[in-house]
């Protein structure tokens, strides 16, 4: 390739083709290496996004061709769909409780581990294992068992004479079992926190303690402010993941969001609309609304970040 170019260049140096061939030389390899990605990006991402935007204004059952119905899908979502409202409430409850709790555990354990504890690699591995396994169907099955009426949790409570409810089949508690499952997987944000804590210069603590600042004060005045970029990052990733969570709710509720829609995650509702009832148009509208939610959340986080995230200048 390069040899060929060296031959060709002097030959038509004055003509326009050399410009083109040089441009080809410079840019083509990049595009060639990106070719698989481009095909995927346009064929499997951008194309489908546009297509699902169109479908969200149609009535489409997979068998007959989509029929344009204007804003009817969106209208139904906001005026005439109790299940949609329920799924929003369930999902927001899940996000609002699971993400902060998960991050709090992750940060607390990371700070403890960062104090030069012996056996750090072992602890880190133990705390990380659940987040590696947690998305698995097997773990959701285990969770169903733990929180069943005769499950492990209630057997444990009975030692103290407490008769626990059937957590999974009680609509007041079923969502909480999923929140607990999510918090149990705090390992990966913990590892990111640990990496962030290592970046904080030690001399800041040394200077602070020479000045007589307590550990508690050091945490609030040094650790937390310097860690805000990591907190910010973790919060965004975990929130998006929480919005997209599907498998545990599907397995624990047998794919229905039961009992009485108390675990009807947004994704679960969307899946059922699409693949149980074949309301593809409506499901596309749901998907676009989810995209909008996540985009707004992300944009909002970035816009407000300058007020609370500490960046080195």
């Amino acid at each position, binding site marked *: 390739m*390069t*040899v060929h170019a060296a031959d060709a260049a002097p030959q038509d140096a004055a003509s326009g083709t050399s410009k083109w061939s040089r441009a080809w030389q*410079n*840019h*083509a*390899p990049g*595009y060639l*290496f*990106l070719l*698989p*990605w481009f095909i*995927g*990006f346009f*064929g499997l*991402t951008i194309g*489908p*996004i546009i297509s*699902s935007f169109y479908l969200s204004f149609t009535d489409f059952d997979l068998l007959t061709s989509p029929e344009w119905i204007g804003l009817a899908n969106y209208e139904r979502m906001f005026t005439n769909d109790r299940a949609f409202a329920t799924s929003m409430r369930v999902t927001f409850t899940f996000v609002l409780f699971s993400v902060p709790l998960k991050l709090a555990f992750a940060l607390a354990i990371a700070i*403890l581990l*960062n*104090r*030069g*504890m*012996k*056996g*750090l690699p072992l*602890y880190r*591995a*133990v*705390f*990380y294992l*659940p987040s590696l*396994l*947690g998305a698995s*169907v097997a*773990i959701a*099955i*285990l969770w169903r*068992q*733990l929180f069943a009426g005769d499950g492990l949790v209630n*057997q444990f409570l009975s030692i103290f004479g407490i008769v626990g409810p059937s957590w999974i089949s009680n609509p007041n508690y079923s969502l909480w079992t999923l929140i607990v499952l999510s918090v*149990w997987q705090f390992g*990966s944000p913990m*590892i990111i926190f*640990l*990496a962030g804590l290592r970046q904080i210069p*030690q001399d800041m603590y040394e200077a602070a303690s020479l000045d007589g600042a307590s550990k508690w004060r050091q945490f609030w005045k040094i650790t937390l402010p310097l860690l805000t970029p990591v907190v910010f990052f973790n919060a965004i990733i*975990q929130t998006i993941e929480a*919005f997209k969570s*599907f498998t545990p709710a599907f397995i624990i509720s*047998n794919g229905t969001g039961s009992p009485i829609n108390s675990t009807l995650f947004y*994704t679960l509702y*969307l*899946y059922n609309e699409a*693949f149980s009832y074949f309301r593809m148009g409506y*499901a596309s509208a749901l*998907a*676009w609304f*989810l995209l909008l939610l*996540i985009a707004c959340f992300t944009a909002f986080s970035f816009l407000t970040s300058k007020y609370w995230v500490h960046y080195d200048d």
Partner: protein
Amino acid sequence: MTIDAPKLTVVTGAENDPRARLRKRIFSVLAHALLIGASILMLYPLLWLLAASFKPENEIFTSGIWPSLSWDIDSYFRGWNAMRVSFTVFFMNSFVIAFLCVVGNLIACSMAAYAFARLQFKGRNFWFAMMLMTLMLPYQVTLIPQYVLFRDLGWVNTILPLVVPKFMAVDAFFVFLMVQFFRGIPRELDEAAMMDGAGPWRIYWKIMLPLSIPVLVTAAIFTFIWTWDDFFGPLIYLNRMQDYTVMLGLRTFVDSTGESDFGGLFAMSVLSIVPIFVFFLLFQRLLIEGIATTGMKR
């Protein structure tokens, strides 16, 4: 990386004060007690699952909360053949899919990452930003048109919808991970190779890839684990039992046996996470570094 080196020693100015040392000691004991307690709490459900899978059916729920040991492997045999199609088929399917996804991701993502990290071309930053945006994209928004596309191609009930996208670098996480790694490889190496007349393809193949084994292994393991774990994709595209993955098989097991064969269900649940656990044991350090450097989700 730097994660392993415990180095926080707060200088109190009174290092040799016996009372300060005692305080430090007490703190350390308390911290370990707390961490050990938390570790037990974290691992207990997993240990219970393991213990339950080795118990005779009638003892699973009667033996209380303390894991008592017994070595009855009957559940494993029962569970393995509990359904019309045995778990041999499910495991084979899962392995084939996971293997192909690993191959696809390694090829396509490393090519894309090489272009982003090293090659000069028009619009590079723009496309890189686009790639990062797809990281945030919820898969639901492409789900239905993709399904229609794959249906029209006649790919439903085959593994193609699960595998082919990986050959198009749709997992932007790995592109990002590899870009980060490639940027750390000294540029002098490819510049020297270019002086010797090597083109981009040779540099990619002979310099970048051999120097990137750690990141390639990390990407391979994560791809394997995520594909192995994936429930949603197979749920949508695979409808015939002989095509099921392990995760779909497990879910069908829950539905079909309902509340009858817990031993078998637990045994198969344990087996379904064994491959992940093995990778965890073997490559724990790489996984943790991978997460720490990119902040991946799991």
